[in-house]
């Protein structure tokens, strides 16, 4: 699948509400099996499929949890 955009979740700012997973039209976000410092399974990018639509950003209630790079991002 072509990857146009890129999204990332700061695992320590995610409260695991799952709204971004629900909103993602490309189904490219999932819950992590890890438990973060707040005690939740945070959301995480599956690694491919992001089209940079920003839906996850606008459904996320936490100000510091999600960043969307619409034109993609160089991943090391």
């Amino acid at each position, binding site marked *: 699948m072509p990857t146009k955009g890129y999204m990332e979740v700061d695992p320590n700012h995610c409260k695991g509400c799952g709204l971004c997973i629900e909103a993602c039209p490309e189904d490219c976000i999932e819950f992590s099996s890890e438990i973060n410092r707040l005690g939740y399974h945070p959301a995480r990018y599956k690694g491919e499929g992001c089209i940079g639509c920003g839906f996850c950003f606008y*459904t996320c209630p936490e100000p510091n949890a999600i960043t969307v790079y619409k034109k993609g991002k160089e991943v090391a």
Partner: protein
Amino acid sequence: MAKDILSTPKSFYKEFFRKPDADKTNTHYCPGCGHGVIHKLLAEAIEDFGIADRTIIISPVGCSVFAYYYFDTGNVQVAHGRAPAVATGLKRANPNSIVISYQGDGDLAAIGGNNILQAANRGENITVIFVNNAIYGMTGGQMAPTTLIGQKTTTTPYGRAAANEGYPIRICELLSALSGPVYLARGAITDPATIMKTRLAIRKAIKAQMDYKGFSLVEILSPCPSGWRMTPVEAKKWVKEQMVKIFPLGTFKDETKEREPIAYEKREYTKEEIKQALGLDKEAPHFSHSMDDVKPIWRNPKIKISGFGGQGVLLLGNTLAEAGMEQGYHVSWIPSYGPEMRGGTANCHVQISTSEIASPVVDHPSILVAMNLPSLDRFEDDVVPGGLIIYNTSLVTRAPKRTDIESIPIPATDIADKLGSLKVANMVVLGAIIEKTGIVTEEAAISALNTVVKHKKFIPLNIEAIKSGREYVRNL
């Protein structure tokens, strides 16, 4: 959406330094709470408009009481439901500021119902973000005015019944009946498309204020997963499937194009004008006086003055307090009266003291003035032993029963009548107080009259009454 990177809006604080717990970068909101999303939309709009340095956000009572943790703007937290009133004051004091009142449904539609109605009707140039989650979230999920019929809350455990609790209040529809508002819209934060519509509505509302067009309000249907006992995803679905049926989305009023901008009268006040308005432009009068010259029992007196409303009971107290102040003392004066302007009972508590006054309430007066019989009946027993009762024998038909107090009978109303006005009976009594106790001087009292009496033409008669009262007591 011109930005390539979507991340934390700049009009949020980088660190939420006001938040008392250790976690300074997360919100205090529950997972899936609508407030977080609405905060984000609002913060983004403020950033994009470049208005953060002139925006004041009003935090209400409710979960968003701590909105001031997050927004790097001016912040005020106000009493329950009173945000529109405070917003009015802020806006009128500085019409160039952008005032955003952030309120929930309990705050806005219940306790603050009339506040929002009047502010909207005045067309105040403010923006209200009205977060409707159909419940009292912060206090644990009680019924709100916006609770749906059949919705179970902690106070409607069998579901809201119209027969018992009435119907959900539709604020947008209600306000759209008024002429004042310029922009009214209802959005929701459910699916991304609806969120984006709400995002635009918020921007439109703020823009209306920036263009001086008048009152704007955006109602936002918002999930409360904790209060509704649902998962965040279920809660969003419930907004979409249940709330939207009762609270249809859309624009209810938009006169942003037609409406002329409000013209504010620009007025700058000079220091001198402010001083003059506050009465600080003149040097305060000062009269020398020593409490040492007063009999110990009346030093730093606690005075209660009581009578019918209309007998000038409050004015007498006010004059005493003002005179005490002009003698350099700490004073207090509090009135206590019924709803009637005349004919009811009124009393006031006055203290004049060489030291600071902790409480203005006088339960046990050292000086009691009884202008009528009910006052003597009611307060005689409260006077401290050795205290003084001055009673108006024109209306009080008995002498005090107490033997451990001093009393002065004075036909104040009759004396006043002879002077030409029943209304100066209070000043006759003031004369009696001056003559008997010396707690204030005649000079200070006359000076005080100039401050407390509105119509200066009555001052000579008042002075005459004071002198008559003194003379009567002197000849007793």
